[in-house]
């Protein structure tokens, strides 16, 4: 992350990974709703301009908690001619794909993508436009990039429609949800999305953030940005707990889920706790046929960034021994400020097999490319 701000604009990036790698979390920037207008009905253009997305948060513009960096981005991710981070394909190709030797990167577009809009019809229109935009402006021009099907997940019917529209399109490798949905993601209202994902053979990527309106702690809204950021990990824990206890994985055995940008080191402890408590309480969930950890270990993956930084760093390896090395997918989160560089993300000795798994093969197993 940008702890020390270096002015690296214009500097030639060094190739930081010899291995061809996959990157599970890249953010192309929708600089303005206007870039989506070619695919957006006039009615929604006008509606958006007049009323905005009306997220479940107080500010009309900007995040609920001010970020620590402009646009939460690397200082060197603005193009020399001033385009904002993640908005320019050739610059991204140069600064990220070439520099980090990325042969397959997954795009996760964020706001204003339609997700978290209060008006679901408008959300669906935006999501559809964003998906067209990803193909037209990104994946069709750069074969190393793959797209996520952005869906208006609060309205499962509209979300399924969008999934079915793109299912089978070679450029889309996952379906994108946000972790802070209006209800825990295991609740039945979201199940049609999982059914459609399983049918389409696409994993569900659950990216941190969202606009649930629920406080990020069970004792209400915290004061600081750091609490929100650290809180994304607990949102993912509670989200996966909901999915496994509600029986999503039992009901959809072909479903694959990727927890994106929510950390990973909490996962073994969550599994231990789930198993220990479920053992005593399983009368409540007779439909579960296996211990919770068994579902999570076979149907869930985690992206690496922001990788936790214990001292000594080898402890990440010990944590992965508990979790399973086949569960972690490397990600950079480009162009955000807490970007992880593949050369430094796991600064301890890995076996070749472990390195290949984390940096490439696990992604191949999940995304199929």
């Amino acid at each position, binding site marked *: *992350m*940008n*702890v020390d701000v270096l002015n690296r604009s214009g500097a030639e990036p060094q190739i930081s990974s010899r291995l061809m790698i996959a990157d599970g979390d890249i953010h192309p920037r929708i600089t303005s709703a206007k870039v989506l207008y070619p695919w957006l009905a006039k009615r929604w253009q006008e509606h958006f301009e007049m009323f905005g997305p009306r997220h479940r948060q107080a500010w009309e513009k900007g995040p609920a908690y001010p970020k*620590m960096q402009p646009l939460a981005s690397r200082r060197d991710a603005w193009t020399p001619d001033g385009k904002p981070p993640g908005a320019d394909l050739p610059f991204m190709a140069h600064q990220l794909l070439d520099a980090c030797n990325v042969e397959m990167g997954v795009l996760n577009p964020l706001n204003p993508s339609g997700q978290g809009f209060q008006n679901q019809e408008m959300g669906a229109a935006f999501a559809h436009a964003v998906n067209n935009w990803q193909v037209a402006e990104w994946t069709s021009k750069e074969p190393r990039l793959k797209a996520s099907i952005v869906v208006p997940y609060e309205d499962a019917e509209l979300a399924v429609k969008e999934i079915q529209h793109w299912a089978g399109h070679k450029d889309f490798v996952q379906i994108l949800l946000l*972790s*802070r*949905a*209006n*209800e*825990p*993601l295991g*609740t039945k209202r979201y199940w049609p999305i999982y059914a459609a994902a399983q049918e389409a053979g696409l994993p569900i990527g659950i990216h941190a953030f969202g606009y*649930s309106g*629920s*406080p*990020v*702690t*069970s*004792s*209400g*809204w*915290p*004061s*600081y940005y*750091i*609490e929100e*950021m*650290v*809180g994304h*990990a*607990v*949102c993912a*824990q*509670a989200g996966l*707990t*909901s999915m496994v*206890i*509600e029986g999503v994985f039992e009901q959809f055995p072909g479903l694959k889920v990727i927890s994106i940008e929510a*950390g990973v*080191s*909490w996962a*073994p*402890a*969550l599994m*231990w*706790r*789930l198993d*220990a*408590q479920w053992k*005593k*309480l399983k009368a*409540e*969930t007779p439909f579960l046929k296996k211990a919770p950890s068994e579902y999570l270990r076979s149907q869930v993956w985690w992206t690496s960034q*922001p990788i*936790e*930084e*214990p001292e000594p760093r080898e402890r990440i390896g010990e*944590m992965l021994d*508990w979790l399973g090395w086949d569960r972690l997918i490397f990600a950079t989160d480009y162009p955000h400020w*807490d970007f992880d560089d593949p050369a430094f993300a796991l600064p301890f000795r890995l076996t070749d097999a472990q390195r290949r798994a984390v940096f490439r093969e696990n992604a191949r197993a999940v995304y199929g490319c």
Partner: protein
Amino acid sequence: MRPIDCDVHPTVPSLKAIVPYLEPMWRDILERRGLDELHSISYPSNAPITVRNDWRGANGKAASTAEELAKACLDPFGTGTAILNCLYGVQLFYNEDMARAFARAVNDWIRAEWLDRDPRLRASIVVPMQNTEFALAEIERCAPDKRFVQVMMLVSEETPPGRRHHWPVYEAAARHGLTLGIHAGSNYRNPPSPVGWTTYYTEDYVNQSVAFQTALSSLIAEGVFARIPDLKVVLLESGFTWLPGYIWRLTKFWKGTRQEIPWVTEPPMDYIRRNVRFSLQPVDGPPVPAELNRLIEHMDSDELLLFSTDYPHWQFDGLDALPPGLSADLVRKITVDNPMATYARLRETGS
């Protein structure tokens, strides 16, 4: 020395039991309005976890007198001292006055019917955190009795525990040599998970450990430990195996965001080592003993864990309150040394 059990729950047999300790006005209200028992949905009465099966008496309840507790819990575990954390739902009232009245009654009931009847017993002062002034007054009222060793609140109350309006309570606790016990449970002012209301109780219970993670973030980020370095916080029934993964993340973001919380001058783990302790049960550990030891190594301290049975909650079977495979040295620390170092009042009164 005999073990110090830092988390034992006395059962209020019924609302009638605390009636004698209420002021007349509240006795009257209780009767006229037909109040129900103050049981929280955090522990449904008949759920398997709420009372271990072999700890349920003929009436289905756990020990509701000091004598029953001695027989069911203190004697079998050879306990030298046990700290009572009463979970009767006084924190749940929306009415602050009612919360104050019932907190007082519960504390007086604990004193008269438990502390006075078994010298091994100590207790937490239950406080109505709904109102800082009332909570403070209750601490001042109970603190002269040194058998009260701790102030207790729930992990999920109206606002994050680090928020500044709570600080007078924490300052009073530190001043009196009382620890701040934060126990699992919610008064449900907010959804019980950070992603909303859950369908199953299993989720709610699992998410208690999630609540403790955000509570710690709040205490650290707001600067409670920087401001009140003498405050000892004991997380009760929190689980602890989540601590390493959590602290690695918190520390990483502290490095990147400390500009917004400049009073947090030390790495978060330093505050935890100095100010925060965890009751042992539930262990929620890896199934293999050697792996649990590795996890404890990741906690970077052998001073963080305090022995607890969590009686009558069902966290283990038989007398296996200590997970297998811990060294004798660590067992002594967990059962005796760490509690003694944590609870100033146990050192004063002897345990």
